[in-house]
């Protein structure tokens, strides 16, 4: 009797069974770093002194945070990563032009598949759990060792089950569900634990919404988020991948540290107030909060479904005149799809700025930094103090529907109030 997380770890440790708390060595299917974390990893990797990376296909490098280069320093760092990729013949290096936000790009390219074990030097590596894979974030030095050896050590986490049943309210997406859960359990409510999402509401969600949910497992302190494979996952992978995958499911008698049951009917559109993702309110309780900027994008909500939802609301409307609205499709493919569906036209007609893929403003990097006292509604994942710019700026987290409606009114607004 094991959970899905325990089964994937056991399979990669070459063991029949693992239990929470156990330290195990595991084989890695994919090791990821970006332009912020790869330079540190490469520096440490060179110290180890091995001939090359453990597998040229299994190392992925994506310059997405401060790329296209925001300044000379970023240019130097991206160059360092690019040259490493070239010298070490890393096959999965994605240059500006093919690059997208890593956690949207990797599933889109079919690089992560169900049953995989993935580590990445980025905290939102937990996103891939939506595919029924185990994935977790680590630091640069752990990745350096993984680049050399193809393995790493893990402590097997306890699992918490989040069971959500019932019909979603209008406009409610995966983002609202995960914000609601984080609001209930807090930013350390799943510290060190696996967050397993089940129930008929989850089964009814698109892959894009499932990625949003698993993406923010880290925001509750979770080691990984995970959703078992179903027909929707199989349909997503169909034609996308050239490796066979293994489907893992939790045993009915698997042990959980806790089980939370929620009703979808209780979940309205959510907004997380400054300065923690757990500081959530339903849209009906928000009150009058004027804003200066809206950002729609990121590894949480820069996917095609997010852009479609925003476009539905912005179609034929204008952005409030004192507001800056920045839309960032997460990958080139999503950008192109949005163009062919007429979504980009809607955004530009409405008066938004549409950017090439980048993490940019989410981490206060570039492309939409806030001044003192400014407020932003963002579909990103963190609203810590100073996250998007000045220490005295404020970030309110929401899904794309609230972000788009707020873009029209200039204050935090749900689509029902337009």
């Amino acid at each position, binding site marked *: 009797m094991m959970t899905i997380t325990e089964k994937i770890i056991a399979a990669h440790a070459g063991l029949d069974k693992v239990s929470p708390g156990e330290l195990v060595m595991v084989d890695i299917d994919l090791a990821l770093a970006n332009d912020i974390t790869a330079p540190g990893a490469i520096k440490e990797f060179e110290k*180890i002194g091995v001939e090359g990376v453990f597998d040229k296909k299994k190392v992925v490098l994506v310059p997405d945070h401060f790329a296209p280069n925001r*300044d000379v320093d970023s240019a130097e760092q991206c160059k360092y990563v690019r040259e490493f990729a070239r010298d070490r013949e890393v096959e999965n290096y994605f240059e500006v032009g093919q690059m997208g936000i890593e956690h949207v790009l990797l599933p889109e390219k079919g690089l992560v598949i169900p049953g995989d074990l993935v580590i990445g030097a980025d905290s939102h590596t937990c996103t891939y759990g939506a595919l029924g894979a185990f994935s977790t974030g680590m*630091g640069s030095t752990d990745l350096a060792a993984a680049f050399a050896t193809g393995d790493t050590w893990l402590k097997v986490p306890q699992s918490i089950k989040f069971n959500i049943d019932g019909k979603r309210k209008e406009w409610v997406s995966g983002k609202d569900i995960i914000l609601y859960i984080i609001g209930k359990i807090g930013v350390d409510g799943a510290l060190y634990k696996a967050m397993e999402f089940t129930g008929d509401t989850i089964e009814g969600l698109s892959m894009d919404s499932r990625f949003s949910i698993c993406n923010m497992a880290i925001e509750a302190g979770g080691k990984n988020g995970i959703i078992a494979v179903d027909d929707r996952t199989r349909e997503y992978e169909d034609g996308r991948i050239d490796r066979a995958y293994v489907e893992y499911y939790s045993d009915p008698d698997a042990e959980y540290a806790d089980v939370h049951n929620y009703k979808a009917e209780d979940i309205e559109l959510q907004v997380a107030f400054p300065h923690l993702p757990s500081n959530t309110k339903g849209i009906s309780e928000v009150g009058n909060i004027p804003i200066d900027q809206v950002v729609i994008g990121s590894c949480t909500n820069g996917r095609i479904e997010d852009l479609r939802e925003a476009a539905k609301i912005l179609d034929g409307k204008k952005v409030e005149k004192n507001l800056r609205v920045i839309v960032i499709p997460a990958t080139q493919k999503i950008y192109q799809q949005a163009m062919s569906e007429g979504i980009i036209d809607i955004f530009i007609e409405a008066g938004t700025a549409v950017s090439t893929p980048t993490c940019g403003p989410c981490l206060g990097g570039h492309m939409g930094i806030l001044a003192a006292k400014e407020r932003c509604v963002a579909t990103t994942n963190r609203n810590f*103090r100073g996250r998007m710019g000045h220490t005295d700026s404020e970030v309110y987290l929401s899904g794309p529907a609230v972000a788009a409606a707020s873009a029209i009114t200039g204050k935090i607004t749900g689509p029902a109030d337009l």
Partner: protein
Amino acid sequence: MEELKGKAWKFGDDISTDHIAPGRLFHLRTDLPELAKHVLEDADPEFASKMKKGDFVVGGRNFGLGSSREHAPRIIKIAGVSAVLAKSFARIFFRNSINVGLPVLVCDTDKIDLGDELEIDLAKGIIKDTTKEIELTFQPLPPAMVRILSDGGIVEHYKKHNGFKLD
């Protein structure tokens, strides 16, 4: 391991990696000693200029939540902090700290106040608050992590053992 001695700097719950090393200062990320001059700036703007080498960062719950950026524990170490004490740590920050050789200790930090003089014996697992004349204990690290820490981080550990050594 040596005995650590210094003053306690208190911080609250949920100190994030953005408090420790904010993205807006990432143009300094290739010059960590310079970035270290801003360490924890968004939690306490005076900390970096007033702390002395050997002092301790004492947090509440969930210290180091957020990003996987390793700059966060690295600049705490470069600033001269000898250990971080907290009621609990975010997972990635904890792991990064061990990997870069920064001691991270889980203990009841409510008993420690700003300015208390502390003496810590890492091997014995004892924290002495000499201001209050009390002794606290901290949860010992698993042996595998003690080994990584005493080898000088994960890279040195790997080189020494020609791989990882869990047991």
